[in-house]
């Protein structure tokens, strides 16, 4: 039976702003299984990045703070770990790559220096062994002339190559989980294809589970085994990738799938979800999508739909359409 690697249970991460508290992550629960690629998909401001940063405990406080819930990693609740233990896990058992390759590497340190750092810290390698391992890693991520790259500076590399170096750094200590926060959004489409190929190839070789955060449904279809859809800080649907694309339940997921123009499938007029994402400050206890939803009923405006499976075992969603008792309380 495949073991659960990470389990989020009722995670709450809030940000204090002058205009009020923003519930960036509002009671989020889902699990990542070993060797699986889980995609968290949603538009900007839905809390997908904050969820990942909460797992890594890189939330800058003030203004942000994890106010509730638990995050289990291999059975241990990370939120209860001491700062020292947590920093031993970061970059070692869980590692992360980010969206902007152009600014994610330190401009004044050489590539080699930045790859060797986690090796020397977590794997206790000396400088020479770390250099050897670093050169292996540079080759693993598909860059030629690794010795030259080892001594060069980030500004001498293109966006695509820098993202490969970020992946090399993340893989340096054979992590169990690789978090990728929109790794290809800032890249051109031909380079994006290379990076996605590389990530799939690495998953085969090292059997690392991947938590991929994206807003592009095309990337989800290509990479994901399991998908979690988020909107305004909440998980509104989760399902295996095939299930989600063929039989989406939540109106927002359906809307997203229809809104994207697809090559060779020309439509006369694009379906578009009206309105815009609600103001995140002091949202009421109701379905946050109600004012943009074409199936909106009275109950949606008043009460929050439960997040449950409706018939299929691992396909859950939070929408009153599938609930029996729908009269307004």
């Amino acid at each position, binding site marked *: 039976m495949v073991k659960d690697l990470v389990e989020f249970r009722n995670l709450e991460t809030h940000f204090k702003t002058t205009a009020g508290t923003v519930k960036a992550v509002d009671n989020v629960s889902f699990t990542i299984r070993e060797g699986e690629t889980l995609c968290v998909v949603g538009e900007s401001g839905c809390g997908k990045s904050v969820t990942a940063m909460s797992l890594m405990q890189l939330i800058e406080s003030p203004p942000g703070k994890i106010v509730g819930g638990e995050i289990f990693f291999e059975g241990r609740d990370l939120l209860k770990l001491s700062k020292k233990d947590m920093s031993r896990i970061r970059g070692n058992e869980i590692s992360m790559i980010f969206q902007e390759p152009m600014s994610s590497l330190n401009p004044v340190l050489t590539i080699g220096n930045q790859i060797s750092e986690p090796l020397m810290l977590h794997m206790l390698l000396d400088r020479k062994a770390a250099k050897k391992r670093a050169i292996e890693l540079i080759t693993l991520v598909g860059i030629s002339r690794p010795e030259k790259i080892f001594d060069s500076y980030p500004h001498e590399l293109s966006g695509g190559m820098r993202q490969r170096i970020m992946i090399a750094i993340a893989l340096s200590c054979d992590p169990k989980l690789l978090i990728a926060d929109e790794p290809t959004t800032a890249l051109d489409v031909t380079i994006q294809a290379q990076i996605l190929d590389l990530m799939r190839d690495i998953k085969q070789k090292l059997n690392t589970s991947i938590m991929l955060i994206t807003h592009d449904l095309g990337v989800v279809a290509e990479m994901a085994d399991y998908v979690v859809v988020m909107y305004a800080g909440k998980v509104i649907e989760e399902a295996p990738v095939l299930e989600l694309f063929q039989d989406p339940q939540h109106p927002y997921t359906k809307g997203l799938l229809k809104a994207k123009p697809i090559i060779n499938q020309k439509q006369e007029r694009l379906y578009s979800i*009206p*309105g815009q994402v*609600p103001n995140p400050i002091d949202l009421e206890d109701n379905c946050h999508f109600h*004012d*943009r939803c074409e199936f909106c009923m009275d109950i949606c405006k008043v009460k929050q739909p439960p997040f449950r499976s409706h018939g299929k075992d691992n396909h859950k969603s939070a929408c009153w359409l599938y609930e029996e008792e729908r009269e307004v309380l």
Partner: protein
Amino acid sequence: MSADVMPITENKNTKKAKAVDTPWKTALRRFTRNKLAVIGFITIVFMFILCFIGPFFSPHNLYDYSLKNKNLAPNVTYWLGTDKLGRDILLRMMLAGRISLLVGFVATFITVVVGATLGALAGFYGKFVDTIIMRVADIFMALPSLPILIILGAVLSDLKVDPDIRIYYLMVIIGILNWTTLARLVRGQILTLREQEFMQATEALGLKDGRKIFKHLLPNTIPVIIVTATLSVAGAILTESALSFLGVGVVPPTPSWGNMISAANNLIDFRKRPWLWIPPGMCILITSVAINLIGDGLRDALDPKTKK
């Protein structure tokens, strides 16, 4: 006739027609939240009241040289004591404050007018105009400002300029000599603004030059000017007091905080009668700290990037 555009569904939050908060209102709100800046503002207001209104309430007047109560320590009638001519130190300090504050603000006004115009010209017209102005700016930047000011002060003394008129020369000299910092900042701001897409939009819309400059470029440059001007007021006050202390700035009998402190050159006064020179010194210190606090508060309030 209009296309069947979906009516934009207003959700509750954006609907309520809340008061329109203009960029200036948001800036004011941010400024008032910054405690240090507000303290600075209150201090400045107090200094102005002290110097410009205080003298009317003082029981003494400037011209009663009564030698019998000269060099008195602070007492109930003379709150800050008297000097060797029996003049009330508190009254003189207030009048001196008028001069120092006036010189500081007028000199800065001159710096702003010269610096902002030259900076705007260099930034907006570019190429030929830009190179000339920037070359001249290089020269002024390299000029050691304090020595030049002292030399000019000495020149004023040699030309036997009447003390009252001398103040105005002083304002012009201090004002003229540090226009370069503001000019560079304004030029830099205009160059960055011209790259912004909304300035290219004014070009695409075919707006006339006048509208481009006064409706788009200047309003977005004003924050930089306000912050730099505020900080340079403190600088101007410090410069004036230094020159006056060296005897080449505001020259007695016109009182200024600087030349009141030069009383400390006489060893006995320095040691025995600190009330002669410490209060004006404290005034300079407090005024310039307050102005710097306001300047920094303005920078945070007006800079759109800093989201506090």
